[in-house]
């Protein structure tokens, strides 16, 4: 009997927008399809952070959602840092990506402190960056959809998740998209991101399985719909 992979959905009430649930669902289903058992746990503001987590997924939210989680996020910041250094894979989309940087300074001048896993800063921008995107990454071309007004600037030492080929990415200026620290990935891409990017999904799953102390022995998954959907997505207008 294999050990169950513990999947943590971070702030599912406050930070869960634009199909973020699709990323969690993709991890759960693919774990199953690869022959692994899982346990889905949630963390809410003010709750006790679960022990023995193998993978963490977090999403975006409205400004009101971000303000509801910011204190709790600082409270669990050390725990998240420790997990990150222990190579626990994490995927943080949009709002939580921003708060995994040092801070988010909104266009109203309010500074929301982040937990600084990424050497990055985010500033509220004048317009929303919206549309289909294609990004070149270590996991192949990623198809996604961005929708954000925050502009994220990475330190020179901070690697990006990839180079944006179509779309605006982190800030619309330097062609970077997202950030990577060990197995922690931050990105602006919705879509949902993981269903249409199964190579990336499996990379996260592999890291989670290894963290749980097991060997990753993947099964063959029928990804034809994903490939066809990718083909279509790459040809659509922004």
């Amino acid at each position, binding site marked *: 009997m294999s050990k169950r992979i513990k999947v943590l959905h971070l702030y599912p009430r406050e930070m869960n927008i*634009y*199909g973020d649930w699709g990323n969690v669902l993709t991890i759960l289903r693919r774990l199953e399809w690869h022959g692994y058992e899982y346990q889905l746990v949630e963390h809410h503001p003010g709750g006790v952070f679960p022990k023995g987590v193998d993978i963490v997924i977090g999403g975006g939210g409205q400004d009101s959602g971000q303000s509801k989680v910011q204190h709790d996020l600082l409270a669990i910041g050390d725990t998240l840092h420790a997990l990150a250094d222990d190579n626990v894979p994490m995927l943080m989309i949009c709002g939580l990506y921003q708060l995994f940087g040092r801070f988010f300074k909104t266009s109203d001048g309010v500074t929301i402190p982040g937990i600084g896993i990424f050497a990055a800063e985010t500033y509220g921008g004048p317009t929303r960056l919206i549309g289909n995107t294609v990004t070149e990454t270590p996991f192949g071309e990623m198809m996604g*959809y961005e*929708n954000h007004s925050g502009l994220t600037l990475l330190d020179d030492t901070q690697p990006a998740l990839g180079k944006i080929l179509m779309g605006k990415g982190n800030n619309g200026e330097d062609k970077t998209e997202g950030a990577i620290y060990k197995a922690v990935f931050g990105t602006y891409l919705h879509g949902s991101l993981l269903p249409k990017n199964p190579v990336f999904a499996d990379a996260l799953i592999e890291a989670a399985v290894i963290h749980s102390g097991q060997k990753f022995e993947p099964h063959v998954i029928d990804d034809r*719909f994903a490939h066809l959907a990718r083909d279509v*997505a790459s040809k659509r207008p922004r």
Partner: protein
Amino acid sequence: MLSPKQTARIGRLVKKAMRLRGGGSALPGLIVEKIHPGFLAHALSDLPHGVVVVTGTNGKTTTTKMVTQLLRSEGLKVFTNPSGSNFTRGIVASLLSHVNKDGKLDADIAVIELDEAYAVHFAKQVAPRYTLVLNVFRDQLDRFGEVDYTAKLLAKVVEATTGGIVLNRDDSPVRDLATLVNKTKKIQYFGYDETLARYFPSDADLHGISDEKITLPPLSEGDVVLRSLSNHSATFSFGNHLQPSTKLRIEGIYNVLNVAAALALVRMIRGKACQESALLQEVATVKPAFGRGEAIDIDGKPLEIVLVKNPSGFRLAIESYKLRPADTMIVINDQYADGRDMSWLWDVNFESFQKSGINVVSGIRAYDMALRLQYEEVTVSYVDTSIENALKVFLKDTGSMPKRIFCTYTAMLAVRRSLSRHYHLEPIE
């Protein structure tokens, strides 16, 4: 600048030319807006009962249709914009056939359906006398950004409204608009009895974020509350006064709530002149708007077309129709009017199809939809991006089940276009 008279004439010529080449679109409106930006405001000024705006995320078309029919039954001459043309230029295009030689609309009242962003744009040009706000759900987020932002848009429309406002008493962001309204404007509410709450999940409920307990504003005689509903009938109260039960032809629980919205609005507009018992009888005859559960006869079997525009609408549609199983086709497009972002499909729960499966998936984003269903472990029998081919397969299958198509806006237009070559469909108006 050209006079309104000349502008209307040019617009009509363009419209005629467009029709000759088989088009018929918002282009005439666009041209008129360009050569005479004040055309819209001019045409709609001086209407005896002013301009009514119907806005919100879901149910605008059906509600506008109901309000129009109810006002006509009260003897008013009503102008309304054809559904789907709820951009100002679409309204301008349809106004062209209804203005007199001075460029003024020949009607007692105009009832205009507008989405939140266009409502703001419209209200800058023409101050509505009445505004009805139905609900706020996450809709076309790629266009508007965030729900909080949508509420801000609606606030602007409410502020611009001169006479009275009808608000959803049970939708927090809509109800909160009342705080922005100064005392000189009238506010009425529509809503549902608390015993019906489980039928009406709010946007917050759908996302598991409802928390604080709320206090509802007290009811007054002008408010309309849905008190009970059963198959094809419903009971409403005016304030706390229960009215006789009404038969209904429209489908879907949300549409029944929109009946309450339409009644509240028409009662506000008509005031003391309102024939209330006749109004309730008229409500019983309202038919579903096209693509909102309209049924087409296909070789003796009903085919229902259900428009789905956003996660909440799709979820509510699946819930509403769950009790009547049917062979199912889903058509997803991603044109501008549909929304480009496919993320919304992941916010819809398709679990209830796990047993039956889905027969056919089509549209530009057919594979995105098929992928979504794969992750919900729902089997799909046939996938084809060509709507024409997919429809052939779907309609050829001659089981005993009724058929149902869920489709996005431009997908619905394509489905109707394709069907109309072989079957009789009510024209779109």
